[in-house]
């Protein structure tokens, strides 16, 4: 049942390590910020749980989870873009 998932996990671990090595120090902050936005993918779980919520209690928690997840995604990407914009404008 989890065989496929474990396969994905192991490959992703190596991929993460491979992708991040040899990063110049100047990009550490934007990179951390960008990675921060990517784990906002948790919002998908929030949408699923909210989409099948039936009681008022779970609706409230689900709503909160979607709001928080969105904050993570939107805030993360916008802030990263703002940082990188500054690097870009001078040639």
């Amino acid at each position, binding site marked *: 049942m989890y065989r496929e998932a474990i396969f994905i996990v192991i490959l992703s671990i190596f991929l993460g390590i491979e992708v991040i090595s040899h990063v110049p120090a100047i990009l550490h902050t934007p990179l951390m910020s960008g990675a921060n936005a990517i*784990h906002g993918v948790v919002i998908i779980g929030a949408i699923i749980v909210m989409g099948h919520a039936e009681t008022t209690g779970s609706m409230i928690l689900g709503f909160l989870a979607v709001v928080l997840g969105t904050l993570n995604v939107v805030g993360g990407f916008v802030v990263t873009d703002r940082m990188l914009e500054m690097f870009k404008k001078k040639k």
Partner: protein
Amino acid sequence: MTNINIMNDISQFSFGISILEITYVIASVLFIIGLKMLSHPLTARRGNIFAAIGMILAIVATILFHQKDGKPIGNIGLILAAISIGTLIGWVIAKRVKMTAMPQLVSLFNGMGGAAAALISMMEFPNIRPELIAESGMANGHVLAILIGLVIGTISWAGSMIAFGKLDGWIGDMRIKAMKYVNLTILAVIIGFVIYIMTRNVQTAGELTPLIYIMFVIAVIYGVLFVMPIGGADMPVVISLLNSFTGVAAAMGGFLYNNQAMLTGGILVGSAGTILTILMCRAMNRSLLNVIVGVFGGGGQSNIAATGSVKEISLSDAAILLSYSKKVVIVPGYGLAVAQAQHICHELDKLLDEKGVEVKYAIHPVAGRMPGHMNVLLAEADVPYEQLIESDEINPDLPNTDVLVVIGANDVVNPAAEDDPSSPIYGMPIIKARDAKNIIVMKRGMGKGYAAIENMLFFNEKTRMLFGDAKGTLQNLVNEVKSL
């Protein structure tokens, strides 16, 4: 004949599900490419946008095509409302916040993700299917994923909020010797809870729900105590670590829903974040174990007592010294950023440049509050990219440097890192400031840096101090240089 069978197999997938899965694959690929591009200066901005597109695709596809037991996503009005609220708030905060406050902002958003993961676990726990429990008891991967998601998500949230508060200056350090043991005990209690829950013999998970709330509270306490004793200089490492925690918590949702996008996205950040954390630890000569146990940061004792006296320099002397130099190196630290002095600093370097002085910036990897933070701040002030030199590269050049100006930096130029094996920063790579022919240190007072240790550089023969707020002092210096 076989062809027809295959066609039948394909048609057994409902159309929506297969589109959803394809979209998740595309989203995962975009995350990976995005992260890869983010690690090169030229492609970084596009990489960020790629990852964002992947995220939007995954979200839209989930809302449109996700099904659970044949039921599509409901409550769509509320979901869209929640997304709109989150987007509005997130956008406004992200656009308004000052660049100096960037680290705490990353920490804040990270905490939001952790909280979302914890909430998902809390809601999914009572929903665990009785059939699953009847079949394999509570000791199954589904339950484990929920519990890990809850614990790690909560720790990440609570820890990030404390990190946010500390970086923003409204929470101080709290250091108690026994903290290490308290933290380890709490960690053991949490693991105990996980084992207890997974070995219960119950009909439905709902019976154990109160335990979930207790675990949540304990995890909050752990998250708080974990970050509380950590000094400001070590905060970047903690944020990076909590960042990878949230990644793992998000990946647990991937297990839960058998969702490939959450799995790849979460684990990718989890592993990349861990590597980034280790790189940062290495830059500061710390071990990751010390971070996890929550005992490191500041307060170390040094054998070398401060001897001699510091010598001050007047503004006009400093202006003359700088104007008639050939090579000047500026070492900016967080003090420069706090004083919002990066713009006036750039004005000084332009002024000197017009006088034929070659000006460069020496950037220590951990200058500022996060690795690379100083680069972002100087980029904001329009300092050209080529003028920013990493410490390893500039060190061999320092003996030929006429004046080295330290602005609001301390630990990154402290020679104790090379001389004093008992110093807490011993072994940390530094900018070898004392190799320069003259050194001017701009500082507010004789306070110590974040590592709270004496800096012998200030007592060096070649060093002259220029006391005052970085912005005011630089402004006066600029005026002096202009009037020469």
